[in-house]
């Protein structure tokens, strides 16, 4: 049998154990990594394993986890903190929710391991209030772990103390950025601040703090149980292990997948995802959410890892993959993401606050058929400026959807600007809905469904749409039984 394309490490227990039953988790060697670390290991030894494994942050940045832990461990302080970033907000990404709802104990265990490694006794999960079930299961896990003596004071008689509390985010996207997240945890506005100081030296309440994403944490118990060498044998040169992606959009097998780093985009889209539904042509996939960029059919053979995605103007991000087919307009897609980022910018720095607004305005002009060639230049110039000058990762990556679509789909932008046409048939202002005289049989159905009564014609005579009055709703296209009405 052909080897399977997916390899499940972070999601190993999702769908296999009862997330609300700690015994189920212990049965799959749960808490064993923590127990051996604190009983037989040393903090330095754990950090060494993490470094050797090559694990990089799965929240998107891709910073080596072991290196980050070493910074926090080296900083002396009376109190240190471990923070789990569960503020998942990318449109189309839901892997953190799946992990928290399916295997919450692995997150609890990994946070305690991190606490032991860096010398922290308090862990905080910053989680979106919009994830009530994840919150419920997490709280139960923490309480059960306490009852079993696997959290709290003097864990397994080793003298190691660690406990976890929850903080709820109110759903601001920028709070997934670690400095904004820390501000929000402290009760201030969720606004980022400039690094350095990095949280590993001065984070939550000014103390050394490690902020790790949910998926990063889920990888930690297996690394310690099976060994760093095992983990680093999976993946590519600089990106070890697997990555969980949420396949969404125009893809047959919508779902969560976990694949080894280095798998090609084609394998993900066509072999695992089953291609686009209804026989449509694959056009592009947005990776990295609103901070990422579009990969296209030209990138089908690209091995997916941190560096290759960045080299192609996108990024790993948290792992949302929004698939688009021939019916998606790339200018419209860029506008969608800018609409999102424009709403979600915290407004602290000018490039992000005003830049996103201006980018969005230009995109609106283009999709309405009022764009000029100068607008296209301005998009690129403004995008580059925002990238260089914005305060945090959110602003610095915000122009990516525009820059990457304009680079890879220049023709489509030109069609909007020069020919005043939307090749994908999405931008309403640039469309005409017409009745093909040779196919129309005069059944009158279209004129009866038209909500603005702009279709005229007699029974058995060819019908005509009054273009000035047409609102381009497409109801007539759906109603016509003879495929006589088309968008163009």
């Amino acid at each position, binding site marked *: 049998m052909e*080897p*399977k*394309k*997916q*390899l*499940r*490490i972070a*999601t*190993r*227990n*999702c*769908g*296999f*154990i*009862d*997330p*609300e039953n700690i*015994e189920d988790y*212990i*049965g*799959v*060697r749960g*808490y*064993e990594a923590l*127990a*051996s670390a604190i*009983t*037989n290991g040393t903090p330095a030894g754990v950090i060494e394993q993490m470094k050797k494994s090559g694990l990089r942050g799965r929240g998107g940045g891709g910073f080596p986890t072991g290196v980050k832990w070493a910074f926090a461990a080296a900083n002396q302080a009376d109190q240190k903190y471990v923070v789990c970033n569960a503020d998942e907000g990318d449109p189309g990404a*839901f892997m953190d*929710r*799946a992990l928290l*709802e*399916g*295997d919450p104990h692995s997150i609890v265990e990994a946070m305690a391991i991190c606490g032991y490694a860096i010398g922290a006794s308090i862990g905080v999960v910053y989680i979106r209030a919009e*994830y009530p*079930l*994840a919150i419920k299961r997490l709280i139960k896990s923490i309480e059960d772990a306490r*009852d*079993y*003596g*696997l959290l709290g004071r003097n864990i*397994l*008689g080793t003298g190691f103390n660690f406990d976890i509390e929850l903080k709820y985010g109110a759903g601001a996207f920028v709070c997934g950025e670690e400095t904004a997240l820390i501000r929000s945890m402290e009760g201030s506005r969720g606004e980022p601040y400039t690094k350095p100081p990095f949280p590993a030296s001065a984070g939550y309440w000014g103390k050394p703090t490690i902020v790790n994403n949910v998926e990063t944490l889920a990888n930690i*118990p*297996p690394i310690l*149980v*099976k060994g760093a060498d095992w983990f680093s044998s999976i993946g590519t040169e600089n990106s070890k292990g697997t990555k969980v992606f949420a396949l969404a959009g125009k893809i*047959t*097998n*919508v*779902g*969560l*997948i*976990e694949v080894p780093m280095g798998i090609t985009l084609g394998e993900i889209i066509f072999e*695992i995802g089953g291609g686009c539904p209804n026989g449509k042509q694959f056009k592009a996939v947005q990776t990295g959410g609103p901070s990422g960029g579009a990969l296209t059919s030209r990138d089908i053979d690209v091995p997916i890892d941190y560096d290759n995605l960045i080299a192609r103007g996108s990024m790993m991000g948290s792992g949302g993959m929004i698939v688009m087919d021939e019916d998606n307009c790339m200018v419209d897609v860029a506008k969608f993401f800018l609409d999102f980022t424009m709403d979600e910018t915290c407004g602290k720095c000018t490039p992000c606050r005003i830049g996103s607004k201006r980018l969005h305005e230009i995109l609106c002009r283009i999709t309405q058929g009022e764009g000029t060639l100068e607008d296209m230049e301005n998009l690129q110039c403004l995008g580059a400026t925002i990238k260089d000058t914005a305060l945090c990762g959110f602003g610095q990556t915000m122009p990516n959807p525009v820059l990457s679509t304009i680079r890879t789909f220049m023709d489509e932008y030109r069609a909007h600007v020069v020919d005043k046409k939307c090749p994908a048939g999405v931008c309403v202002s640039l469309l005409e809905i017409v009745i093909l005289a040779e196919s129309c049989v005069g059944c009158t159905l279209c004129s009866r469904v038209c909500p603005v009564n702009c279709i005229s014609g007699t029974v058995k005579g060819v019908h005509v749409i009054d273009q000035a009055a047409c609102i381009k709703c497409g109801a007539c296209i759906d109603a016509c039984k003879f495929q006589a009405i088309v968008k163009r």
Partner: protein
Amino acid sequence: MAKITSIADLKKFQQEYRSLKEARSREKIIVSVSLATCGIASGGNMVMEAMKDEVARQGIDNVEFIRVGCMTYCHSEPTVEVSLPGREPLVFGKLDENGARQLVQKYLKKGELTGTVIPVNYTRVEL
């Protein structure tokens, strides 16, 4: 349950629990229902209730239902995994009330395949 106080304690508990589970899977039909937010939203609880009801009607007395998290098959929710003693577990998807009852009548009772079986498309790392 008493506290776990040492690593030896943890391993002992783990071994006992594992053999308990193995023994259970030899005797019982294990039905795991995908009940993360998405599974619940698409009707997972309804499917579980329908199956429980049908199991009682059919007088099958060796079924154990387990609530699990996301099975990753968003495209086919609601999904359940059925593990008959001595057989490889199978995942059934796109279930509704009728499909859930059919599943009990056919597969749980007689071992006959019915409905949509989702092929396993991954290798899972087991610790």
